[in-house]
């Protein structure tokens, strides 16, 4: 088994939200950040381009209008062991300068994946993220489709495939080029489901993929197909050591999902921006499902798009409780909504700095 090392360990996930045109010393922050992850040989990192969003300053960026699309939101995600993420943290903060950054706990699995007995806290519901290569194939089928198909058949609540444009795969930099096959450029599939079902599907995924690389995180499924299952956890604003606790909502809908005639995700971004949330970003997937419709992407025969869209909202637990009201209203008919605790977040603009990157700990 060439170079397969089985990993199953506690990890940290560093997520940064920023702008496509953010620069530092004349160089693009996106390039510098991924250079940093490449040099540090971060196990897995991926850079995603958002389609709509706003940050601390509440400037709207959207690909719907040409003049507002010249600085679209970017999201970079880096996952590795705690020591290795902490080693790049200081440099990442210095590079970032503005935007949002979060640190979250995750379990990182790679190599030979056997049935995993999930830690107790992952039993309620689990978010499974699978990192794949763009051109990776399974039995002549694109790997992301094969993965979504398997997850759908195993009754997982939803899965969305996102295309990355840059990143590291098992420590090696893989960057998309304009010309070229971009075979190993990372992409990821985010799936949400009951802990027990996710745990059962893991060995199957391990068998399906040549070299599986995935993370598990604890989430709560708040809504499914328009129905409220449970509200987001009522978290305190600080942990017992006084460190701030943050919370995240993820709303999985599709381009075709409408609220009063408008796509749910655009209505969401607009309403959340009016409500003064610290930041929200929408990412468009290329394939996926949520609820009981089979995995799908766009259809060549129709102008209207059908691909899945995921909106990520991060703020204090109190603001997230308010944001959930908005989310609940706009996802009255459909959509999958999950909530997670975010143990650390820093929001930085030229004028303001909120939060920090010391990990809070709160058991619930």
């Amino acid at each position, binding site marked *: 088994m060439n170079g397969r090392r089985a990993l199953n360990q506690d990890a940290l996930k560093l997520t940064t939200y920023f702008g496509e045109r953010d620069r530092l010393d004349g160089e693009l922050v996106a390039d510098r950040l991924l250079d940093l992850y490449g040099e540090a040989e971060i196990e897995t990192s991926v850079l995603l381009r958002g389609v709509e969003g706003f940050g601390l300053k509440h400037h709207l960026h959207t690909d*719907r209008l040409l003049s507002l699309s010249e600085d679209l939101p970017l999201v970079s995600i880096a996952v590795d062991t705690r020591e290795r993420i902490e080693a790049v943290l200081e440099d990442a903060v210095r590079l970032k300068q503005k935007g949002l950054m979060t640190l979250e706990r995750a379990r990182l699995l790679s190599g030979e994946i056997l049935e995993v007995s999930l830690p107790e806290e992952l039993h309620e519901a689990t978010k499974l993220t699978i990192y794949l290569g763009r051109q990776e194939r399974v039995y002549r089928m694109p790997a992301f489709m094969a993965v979504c198909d398997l997850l759908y058949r195993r009754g997982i609540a939803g899965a969305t495939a996102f295309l990355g444009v840059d990143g590291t795969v098992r420590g090696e930099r893989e960057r998309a080029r304009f010309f070229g096959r971009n075979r190993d450029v990372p992409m990821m599939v985010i799936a949400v489901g009951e802990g027990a079902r996710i745990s059962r599907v893991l060995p199957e995924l391990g068998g399906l993929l040549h070299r599986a690389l995935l993370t598990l995180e604890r989430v709560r499924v708040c809504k499914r197909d328009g129905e409220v299952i449970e509200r987001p956890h009522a978290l305190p604003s600080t942990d017992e050591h006084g460190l701030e606790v943050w919370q995240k909502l993820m709303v999985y809908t599709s381009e075709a999902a409408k609220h009063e005639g408008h*796509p749910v995700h655009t209505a969401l971004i607009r309403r959340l921006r009016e409500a003064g949330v610290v930041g929200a970003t929408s990412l468009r997937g290329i394939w996926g499902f949520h609820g009981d419709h089979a995995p799908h992407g766009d259809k060549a025969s129709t102008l*209207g798009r059908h691909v899945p869209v995921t909106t990520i909202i991060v703020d204090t637990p109190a603001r997230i409780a308010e944001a959930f009201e908005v989310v609940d209203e706009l996802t009255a008919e459909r959509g999958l909504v999950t909530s997670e605790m975010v143990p650390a977040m820093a929001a930085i603009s030229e004028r303001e700095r909120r939060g920090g990157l010391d990990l809070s700990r709160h058991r619930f």
Partner: protein
Amino acid sequence: MSVLVWVGVALLGGVGACARFLLDSTIASRSPLDFPLGTYVVNISGAFVLGLLVGVSLEGDAYLLAGTGTIGAYTTFSTWMLETHRLGEETERWSMAANVGLSLAAGIGAAALGRAIGGAL
């Protein structure tokens, strides 16, 4: 045509493009509508000014500089089409139809009005 006029077209074209970008993004970031209002205002105001230039019988190099150079760079057909297509992708049928219909009707109206006003000056 002199080199000077070519340089003038290039410079004024740049001015037109910058004016469009500033106006469009200012309107777009403030507009609560789904409708691409920024591009609409740019195109209609451009049609009006071009009508005005024809109305006052601007000729030769001056017309080339102001019309083709400045207004040509200021207005944008491609953005109008792209944003209409995006509305279609989001199946915003009314906004899509309005963006085509209103732009055509108001654009021709603005050009005619500009021309009439220019002719009367």
